[in-house]
């Protein structure tokens, strides 16, 4: 469907609808928070009953999430030591002769057995689709690193991770999307890196994005789009088929796992509708994990967990942060939005609408590591994390545009539209309200109880029931602690065992951390959108004590 994926240049009618839908998430969140507060004071009996039902609902969701967190973590562990280059070669062979693979899908031991089962299923699905995978030798990669204020200490490990990965860098076009307004120091750093790594790649281009292109906002998407267009010209001139080019749009601090491009290539090859798909790795935040305060660690490990859980839900998965997609699709949908902050999720929605719902995100169980937002001191770190999370929560800007598109899209199935609309509303509303409900409002009926309510069984039983449910939720917390420890133990960070053990106890602060760095920024973002105070992209400050990678 041809759709203007933007809140700008709309007709008056569309503009009114857009504005209404912008107000809706914030208004619902505030209605829930204030409504429950008022209800707790005015009708504490009813509020107490609602809170019991809510806390039970929350713990059921927690069970569901924890189960799939464990499943997803197990999948990540199973896929961890996969020799993706071997499997790329096998898929090439599969292209020629479908039965030639059996001997190679060995299943010795539990882990390799699972891995073999996954591979078999993937290849069976590919076979069933009737789609032939492209030859690996035809596939090329474009990696875009948008740079604005980042220093060499931040950018160089990212470039190095691609150059030194197991996938041949000579099949990679590395493109640093540099802002024209970046400082001379940043520019010097970028060109120095280009000089240093030029020969490692098929090509290494620096594209300077002019700051005065009409219709663009000061957002990362505009920079990446400019770089994307440059790359399109490059590939066209070189005669490359866009269908065989995979573009990965990273952050400047994204350190890809050594297997990343190989794993991505494999998944690209075995995905039947590969040019109608984005590929989502698991983001982890190891680059400066031990240089930041514990609250910063916890919130970003929580983000990794969230993505691990989301990865199991392929039907509703949306791209987040660093991700990859078919270059052909990118060109067809018109690149990233140039006036939106949340370019990472917006590109999925844009593609989903463009292809009338025939677009999907494929999870790939390989990690990309990024920096945790930090500052010169704990307070600056606190502020920077808060701003970063608010920027993430600003993804709510997609909601009115997507819903507006859904109202127009006749070709997208009603089921898909309903499913994604519920997902959007549920995701953003629960993000902004649940912590408030759980940390504060759940206790209000008891606090504001009048004489009448205080003489009911509900007054005494509701806190007791909620207490038992909260105790049960500690099992979920324990699961998070164990997975967090395991994830760090298998990470490449060289930290003392005792420090990792101590980190596990950081999780005890999770209710406060989630409230401060998740719910409040989300409510802040929704309130800004509700009031029409649109945010601009601000580069998150990231400090490194040393060139740690």
């Amino acid at each position: 469907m041809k759709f203007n994926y933007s809140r700008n240049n709309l007709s008056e009618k569309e503009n009114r609808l857009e504005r209404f839908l912008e107000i809706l998430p914030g208004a619902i969140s505030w209605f829930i928070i204030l409504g429950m507060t008022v209800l707790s004071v005015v009708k504490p009996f009813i509020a107490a009953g609602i809170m019991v039902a809510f806390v039970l609902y929350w713990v059921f969701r927690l069970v569901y999430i924890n189960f799939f967190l464990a499943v997803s973590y197990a999948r990540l562990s199973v896929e961890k030591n996969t020799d993706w280059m071997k499997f790329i070669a096998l898929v090439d062979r599969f292209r020629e002769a479908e039965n030639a693979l059996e001997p190679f899908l060995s299943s010795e031991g539990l882990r390799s057995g699972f891995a073999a089962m996954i591979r078999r299923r993937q290849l069976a699905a590919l076979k069933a689709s009737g789609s032939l995978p492209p030859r690996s030798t035809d596939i090329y990669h474009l990696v875009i690193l948008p740079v604005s204020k980042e220093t060499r200490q931040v950018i160089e490990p990212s470039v190095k991770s691609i150059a030194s990965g197991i996938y041949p860098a000579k099949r990679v076009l590395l493109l640093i999307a540099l802002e024209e307004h970046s400082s001379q120091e940043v520019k010097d750093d970028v060109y120095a890196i280009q000089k240093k790594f030029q020969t490692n790649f098929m090509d290494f281009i620096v594209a300077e994005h002019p700051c005065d292109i009409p219709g663009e906002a000061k957002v990362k998407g505009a920079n990446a789009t400019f770089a994307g267009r440059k790359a399109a010209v490059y590939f066209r001139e070189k005669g490359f088929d866009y269908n065989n080019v995979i573009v990965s749009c990273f952050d400047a601090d994204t350190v890809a796992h050594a297997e990343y491009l190989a794993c991505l290539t494999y998944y690209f090859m075995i995905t039947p509708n590969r040019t109608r798909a984005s590929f989502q790795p698991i983001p982890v935040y190891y680059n400066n994990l031990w240089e930041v305060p514990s609250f910063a660690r916890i919130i970003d490990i929580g983000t990794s967990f969230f993505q691990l859980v989301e990865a199991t839900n392929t039907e509703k998965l949306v791209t987040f942060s660093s991700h990859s997609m078919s270059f052909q699709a990118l060109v067809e949908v018109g690149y990233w939005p140039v006036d939106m902050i949340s370019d990472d999720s917006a590109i999925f929605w844009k593609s989903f609408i463009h292809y009338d719902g025939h677009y999907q995100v494929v999870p790939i169980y390989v990690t990309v590591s990024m920096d945790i937002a930090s500052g010169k001191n704990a307070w600056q770190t606190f502020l920077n994390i808060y701003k970063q999370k608010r920027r993430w929560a600003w993804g709510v800007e997609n909601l009115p545009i997507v819903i507006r598109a859904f109202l127009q899209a006749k070709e997208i199935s009603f089921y898909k539209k309903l499913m994604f609309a519920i997902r959007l509303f549920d995701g953003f509303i629960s993000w902004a309200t649940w912590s408030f409900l759980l940390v504060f409002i759940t206790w209000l009926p008891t606090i504001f109880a009048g004489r009448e309510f205080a003489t009911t069984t509900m007054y005494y039983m509701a806190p007791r029931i909620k207490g038992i449910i909260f105790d049960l939720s500690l099992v979920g917390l324990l699961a998070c602690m164990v997975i967090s420890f395991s994830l760090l133990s298998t990470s490449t960070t060289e930290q003392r065992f005792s420090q990792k053990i101590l980190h596990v106890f950081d999780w005890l602060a999770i209710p406060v951390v989630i409230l401060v760095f998740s719910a409040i920024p989300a409510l802040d973002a929704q309130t800004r959108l509700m009031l029409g105070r649109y945010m601009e992209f601000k580069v998150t400050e990231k400090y490194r004590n040393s060139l740690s990678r």
Partner: protein
Amino acid sequence: MLLLRRIIFYCLVVLYFIVCPVLLLFALGYTINPLTREVEQTGLIHLSTIPAGASVYLEHSRFVQKTPTNINELHPGQYHVTLDLPGYRTWGKQVAVSPGKATAFDKILLIPKDLSPSIFMAGTFRQLRPLTGTDFILTAQDVNLGSFQLHNWKTNKHFPLADHSSAWYGFPVLSVFHEDDSKVFILYGGGLWERKYLFVDMKGDVPVISDITKLFSKDPLLIKWDPASSNDLFPVYANYIDRIDVGTSAFYPRYLEDVKGCGFHNNKIFLVSNENVFTKYDHEKTKPESFLENKRMDTSALGKNVFFNIMIYPDDLVFLQGEDGRLITNSAPYQLMDKGVLGIKYHERSKSLLVWTAGAVFSAKFVAGQSGIKEWKFRQVYQGGEDIKQCFWALDASYVIVNDNDKIYVFETEPVSGFHGEALVSVKKGSLIFYSNETGCVYFLDEAGQFRKIQLIPKENIVEQLLNKDE
């Protein structure tokens, strides 16, 4: 994976829609009667004690959990509840349980079996006078000032008011004037033809005594002052009030005239004139304004020829206690009691008023009535008293400590079923007592005149009580 997600999702949805109503019905008291196999709405009893950990008996069955606890799923009816904690008196009550309702016994104070009052200060004393609102208790072994001592109940320090070298050592004391919260008091005494007024200042490390007799034109009925400005004394006479500035020795005769009642608070003078006009001024008698909530009050309740002591509390509450025991407030319905009131105490946090007469104790709350208009709702805490002299709020206004007919009692402020009082100890005949919420101790002179204290509230529960200093 998607299939697994769907299976688990739908299982959880089904489970939620089963568990959630069950939990809500459980919270509402619904349960299945195992005998009749019918759904029945039950009630519960909430019990919490100070100290915690008492065993709970329902009829003759011991309940597994100890206090604080809820006994839930009780079929409607009458139950006898007994609480038992080793070393403490057994607490028991007949409790009615209604469907969907909770009968709450919050902060049940368990009284030690062996109160064994400890000696607070060695010696034999004739009288004890708490200096309310300060950290001090005043005692006397005989009539001479040399036998008077100040006891700091917070620090357990004791100071003689006048040592052997003092000119006032042998000064016979006839009466003591003190205002709540004030760090000064006035002693009246001396020989028959040489009566004196001594001003005792406790603001420093040691009490300082000065003779202010010359500032009095004659013996007043009362001496009142504002605790916030204790150098300004107001001797009260029939119909008028003088003013004395102790700091500058200035004397202002007939400073306030046509006075039927007075009170002093936060540098304001509260007056009721003989014409029943309620006015408050600053100390310089400027900025007059009414302190009556409704200026059209029917003032007949004030009567004639009755002098009123005006007491001012937070929340703009003003109470007028007549010398004949009538109690009036500054908001409708104005007259709270028509006679017999000996004293009142206001508890700011719970906004409760304690009122006592010689024979009964009442607690009152200012709450909205059926018409929606706020009014004082009285509840009798104790009746059948013989000679109630003093009452104190205790445990966040949950209890009242009463000094009645030379015995100390503890009563629940809001008895659920009938008055529930516990006798503690006997005290010296005619003697006053003191209860400190900060130490949880009752201070008194025993029958032999020994100065003793009882730890009524366990020390571990004191921190909670410190939040309620206004008791």
